[in-house]
């Protein structure tokens, strides 16, 4: 049984990688496959991966085997420096459901996009990014070490940015793609710092050893209070970047710049949950500190309330759906903070499917409205919730404005983070230039127009 599991695990991880390699290589060699082949290849690999995951699930249930580890050894090892890049995948009660969900949703989107993008110039490009995204998600969900998880995050981030900027002949998609990429980098930086600290403290990058070899959801950490507080806060920042929690919520509607299928499922339903998944995976880090759990609960609650308000006043369907996604993720984070991990897992999966359907139906919204209104013979109800009509007129306007401006969060990030950051590095550049000039007697850079 164990060898069987290993084979199945290899298929789950190997199939999407093979698709990516085939599509990527033939693209690089300027021999793109015909559309029909791309379609068949992706469908075949997603189906095989899904069946293999189902097989793993079946065996794990039948043999009461809560966890299967697939160790691929060290990808890079530098002995003297104590550096190693360890690839390891865990199949357990957390990752298998997530992988099943990924295969189903990504498979649906693959066959949807095959029709949707028919004859579009970027068909091939889409499917290369599509398979990269799938590989990234699988790596992230199955990761057994921090290095593997980070690799997955990076692949997801890169392919997301490329898909958002799919229409690269227009300005807005490229700008928004860059912005999302930037926010992902902030999350990555926080995550990397947390990973380094955990590495430093426990001398391990493996979740299992870090969490004392217990299968999820058991496990505990052996970090002192201050370290776990620091690590926890960094992880919260990383999760809020990836999951669009406060103050990073602005990236999700911007991600809707791309194609409907990619924006729909990739951001609205799958990658939005990466942050929540991270919190679930490293749940034991949080469960020991009450302060951390309070922080996490507060973050989730404020995000949920903010996003619920904001999604109500959005004028376009995709932004409205994006903020409702954020709202649900906020609630999921609250559940994780309360220790309801299984509930959170079920919530993630249910939410992902519902949101995908809604986003795929979004382009037919007007027709759906007409059908519904014809059927009931009147306008659809569009009332205000009780607590809004109870508010004073002035307050109503204030809150409306706050929600319409999406909590001013994007401009806050611009003014409080981006601009000081750029200014700081411009200052460094000037200092460097000054010193080089002083030492060298001439300008270090080729002349530029100021």
């Amino acid at each position, binding site marked *: 049984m164990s060898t069987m599991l290993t084979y199945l695990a290899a298929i789950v991880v190997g199939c999407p990688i093979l698709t990516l390699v085939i599509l990527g290589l033939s693209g690089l060699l300027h021999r793109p496959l015909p559309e029909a082949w791309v379609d068949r290849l992706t469908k075949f690999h997603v189906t095989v991966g899904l069946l293999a995951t189902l097989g793993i699930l079946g065996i794990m249930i039948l043999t009461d085997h809560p966890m299967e580890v697939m160790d691929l050894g060290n990808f890079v090892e530098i002995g003297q420096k104590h550096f190693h890049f360890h690839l390891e995948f865990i199949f357990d009660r957390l990752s298998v459901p997530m992988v099943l969900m990924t295969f189903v949703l990504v498979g649906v989107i693959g066959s949807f996009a095959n029709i949707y993008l028919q004859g579009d110039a970027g068909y091939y490009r889409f499917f290369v990014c599509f398979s990269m995204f799938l590989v990234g998600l699988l790596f992230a969900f199955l990761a057994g070490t921090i290095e593997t998880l980070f690799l997955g995050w990076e692949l997801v981030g890169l392919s997301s940015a490329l898909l958002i900027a799919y229409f690269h002949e227009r300005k807005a998609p490229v700008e928004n793609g860059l912005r999302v990429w930037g926010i992902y980098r902030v999350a990555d930086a926080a995550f990397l710092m947390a990973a380094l600290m955990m590495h430093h403290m426990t001398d391990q990058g493996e979740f299992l050893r870090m969490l004392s070899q217990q299968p999820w959801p058991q496990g505990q950490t052996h970090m002192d209070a201050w370290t776990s507080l620091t690590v926890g806060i960094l992880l919260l920042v990383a999760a809020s970047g990836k999951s669009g929690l406060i103050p990073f919520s602005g990236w999700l509607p911007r991600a809707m710049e791309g194609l*409907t299928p990619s924006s729909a499922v990739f951001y609205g339903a799958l990658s939005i949950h990466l942050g929540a998944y991270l919190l679930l995976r490293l749940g034991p880090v949080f469960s020991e500190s009450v302060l951390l759990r309070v922080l996490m609960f507060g973050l989730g609650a404020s995000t949920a309330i903010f996003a619920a308000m904001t999604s109500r006043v959005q004028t376009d369907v995709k932004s409205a759906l994006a903020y409702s996604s954020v709202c649900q993720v906020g609630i999921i984070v609250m559940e994780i903070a309360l220790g309801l991990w299984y509930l959170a897992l079920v919530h993630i999966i249910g939410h992902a499917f519902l949101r995908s359907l809604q986003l795929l139906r979004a382009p037919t919204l007007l027709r759906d409205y007409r059908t519904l209104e014809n059927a009931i013979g009147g306008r659809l109800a569009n009332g205000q919730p009780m607590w809004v009509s109870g508010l004073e007129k002035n307050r109503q306007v204030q809150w409306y404005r706050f929600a319409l401006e999406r909590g001013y969060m994007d401009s806050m990030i611009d003014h409080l983070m981006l601009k000081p950051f750029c200014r700081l590095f411009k200052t460094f550049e000037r200092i460097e230039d000054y010193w080089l000039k002083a030492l060298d007697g001439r300008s270090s850079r080729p002349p530029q127009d100021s």
Partner: protein
Amino acid sequence: MMANDHRVRKILESRGVCIPETTCFVGGYHNTCTDSIEYFDVDRLPPTRHMDFLRAQEVFDQAREHNALERSRRFTSASLDLSPAEALRHVEARAEDLAQARPEYNHATNAICFVGRRIRIRGLFMDRRSFLTSYDPTSDTEDCPILTRILQAVIPVCAGISLEYYFSTVDNMIYGCGSKLPHNITSLLGVMEGAASDLRTGLSQQMVEIHEPMRILFVIENTPEAILAILKRNEVLDRLVSNGWVQLASLAKDSNKLHIYKKGGFVPYEPTAAPPPVHEDSYACYHHKRGHLPFARLGAQRAS
């Protein structure tokens, strides 16, 4: 249906329009995307006429299948070997497919509007590129009140459709609304591109990709003088015609002589192209072909 009401019929009779007792109207709605026809108030039909209705419905069903087949040749995802029944199923499925960015091609490839008796163009294969407006010049009087009313409706409407397609095709990003794929419905009234953009108007790239941009040609069955007189009396029509937004031609009532409108007057038109090929039926014209097709004559050569 109003015309089924005997009170309405009486009033009509007093105005000289007589609808026989045996005539019965059934309203319907043809969905050009799914090629379905919905009939209204069939339960009000006199029971004696039910068999007639069923027979008519059978004919309509055949027409739906053939229409679907003729449309399907333009869709790259439809096989060229479909049977009429399969074609109907294909367009029905296509209309419901959420992933389908081209449920139908609407008025794309429109090029001509014919205003005249249908008998004059009977047996002419026009590749679905023509608007057809029935008009009988022999029942019209000297100053053409019927033709005037028809042209007042037909010229602005068809010119509007044709020009919308024309400009959306020649500059899809500016006059059209660009690719449909990143569209985002906003305020329940229009679309914008992606997360934020201007409201997009015009037709999408997916709608006009098979369109050939050209000014629509109206072929009107009446004398050049009568048409010029109508233009003179109607400033709106005259502006569209004399400023070259549309083209105009006249077909004589009693011969095949054509006149074409040039700079304020009509000049005789001499055909330069070879006469159209003759095919057995329209299926033979379009079978196994995807692109634009030339006009063709159907059936045996008809005496003109």
